[in-house]
């Protein structure tokens, strides 16, 4: 789109922004207000809808603050919804109405908005939600499609990739009203859900070879744009920072527990893999009315989308969940850890003989008990 077209759209948005009061009462549906939680956790919700459609209220606040993206202290001007990267996962059911209040505090310096991939019309809502610092807007959209869909900021022009990549992206999970099912219609239930938002950052290095740090978006933009245009990220991370989901913040599960892992990548392709585990049921493209793929080793999240994978843990220990471009995982940061407790299953895997010196005549020596 040309800049002039973006400006025209912005003017239309402002003109349409005011809604007559009588239109508010058009839906006679119950309301529910949700308090969002920071990823990787997800707010409490029913998997199978217990009642009819409702209007579900959420509030998102645009925040502009410097963020540290690795353990070297590399700082970039971050932009987030509610202070987290990714923004929080919102969960509703197909047929519900999502009513989002977007607040842009006066302390911010930039216009923000939000494009919901799950919504229909107005550039995902972005054309109706352009808020300047000091403003807020409320948008209601109908969740007509079941699946996991990203949302991201889209102010127009270079601001769209800059804001999205700087952290203003998240996802909505629209569950089928009767919950998740496999290809035969058998219900699938999860004991836990984790939301992992993957980010690609484009940070230049100085003459000394170290990553440069920035606190000002206007300083950062030309430098990061130069790298973005090469499509060559310096960091690929989960939850906004190298190591964010490791160590004390490793994800947890128990043997026998079924975990749903929602994975979004608002910009770039990713190939999640759970080392030591599998994707029992994977909605790779994110749409829940497509029967899930079964028994996968690695799945594909298209840039600009989200997917969901269901797995029942069967062995205790440490798992790594990563993007299986091993360079991105090991060198650029795209890895999370799971700590799983429970009983080891010898039937699934048993070390028949531990590493020991190769016997001279090839006959195995004493085996492990």
């Amino acid at each position: 789109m040309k800049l002039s077209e973006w400006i025209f759209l912005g003017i239309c948005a402002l003109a349409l922004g005011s809604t007559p009061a009588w239109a508010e009462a058009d839906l006679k549906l119950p309301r529910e207000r949700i308090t969002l939680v920071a990823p990787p956790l997800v707010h409490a919700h029913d998997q199978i809808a217990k009642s009819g459609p409702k209007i579900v209220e959420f509030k998102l606040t645009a925040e502009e603050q410097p963020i540290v993206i690795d353990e070297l202290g590399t700082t970039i001007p971050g932009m987030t919804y509610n202070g987290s990267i990714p923004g929080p996962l919102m969960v509703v059911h197909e047929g519900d109405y999502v009513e989002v209040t977007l607040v842009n505090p006066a302390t911010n310096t930039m216009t923000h908005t939000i494009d919901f991939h799950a919504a229909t019309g107005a550039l995902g809502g972005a054309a109706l939600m352009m808020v300047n610092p000091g403003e807020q807007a409320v948008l209601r959209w109908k969740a007509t499609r079941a699946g996991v869909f990203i949302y991201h900021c889209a102010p127009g022009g270079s601001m769209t990739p800059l804001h999205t990549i700087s952290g203003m992206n998240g996802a909505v999970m629209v569950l089928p009203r009767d919950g998740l099912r496999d290809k035969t219609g058998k219900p699938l239930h999860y004991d836990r859900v984790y939301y992992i938002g993957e980010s690609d950052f484009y940070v230049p290095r100085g003459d000394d070879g170290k990553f440069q740090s920035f606190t000002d978006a206007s300083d950062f933009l030309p430098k990061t744009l130069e790298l973005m245009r090469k499509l060559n990220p310096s960091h690929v991370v989960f939850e906004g920072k190298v190591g964010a989901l490791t160590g004390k913040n490793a994800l947890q599960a128990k043997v026998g527990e079924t975990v749903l892992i929602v994975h979004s990548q608002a910009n770039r392709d990713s190939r999640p893999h759970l080392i030591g585990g599998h994707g029992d049921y994977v909605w790779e493209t994110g749409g829940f009315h497509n029967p899930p793929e079964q028994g996968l080793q690695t799945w594909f999240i298209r840039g600009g989308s989200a997917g969901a994978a269901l797995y029942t843990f069967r062995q205790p220990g440490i798992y790594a969940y990563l993007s299986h471009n091993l360079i991105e995982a090991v060198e650029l940061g795209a890895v999370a850890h799971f700590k799983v407790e429970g009983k080891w299953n010898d039937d699934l895997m048993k070390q028949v003989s531990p590493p020991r010196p190769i016997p001279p005549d090839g006959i195995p020596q004493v085996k492990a008990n």
Partner: protein
Amino acid sequence: MLTLKLKRVMKTGVFAVSFGIASTPIVMSSSAQLDSVEEVDVVPRAFAYRMAGDFSQAGRPVDAPLVAVARTSVLHIMKQQVTAAEYDRCVAEARCMSRPSSGSSGPNLPIVQTSWEDATAYASWLSGKTGETWRLPTDEEWVFAAGSRFHDDALSVAASRDPSMRWLARYEKESEQEALDQRPRPTGAFGANEYGLLDLSGNVWEWTNTCFIRQSLDAMGKPAGASIANCGERVVEGEHRTFVTDFIRDARGGGCAVGKPPSNLGFRLVREE
């Protein structure tokens, strides 16, 4: 491409073998006087040494044995880790590979992102310069000198047929430590231990010469059978003990590995009498 050159170093009149990557300029040393290396003398004492490597009993992994060691000679060890400025002198004389771009900058910072090979090359250069024998410490010497700064890697998990118990215990143990900012800090920033050595177990892990070994133990915990050593992997000491491939300079991308990877790889040397 690596090039090998023989050069006559004018001031000392000694032939010096130098090598370098084609893109790295080879600089003749000004042979500035080498500052004397600050040493600490750690006097003999008896101590308990946790061996390093993979130990098993009846085929199950167990903690390494704790052995009583009675050191009888003084250990002469560098008070601090080798600094970037010191290492640069070795680079200037083309005896050490130039630092990779992610290394530290500034003269009073420890040299980091160095491999065991880098450390060994530096030790060889320093020995030539000073006429002394400098080398990396063995793991036992490092632990001896580190005293209270050594972090025992024993897990105190009963031997089990369930391999996950040790993995989870090690992960928990290494996660306990606060995540330190990985940027190298000036010499002395992590303070001295009881013997006067600076910066042990800060955010720089230190190479030792000790190879990774695998050893099975009998029911009494004594070595049973020969140990297998892999000298392609050496013991690295710091906030926790680990084993790193000898040509690795940056172990930060632990990635899939179970446990926490070292933030920075550096070293200090011991001087043999």
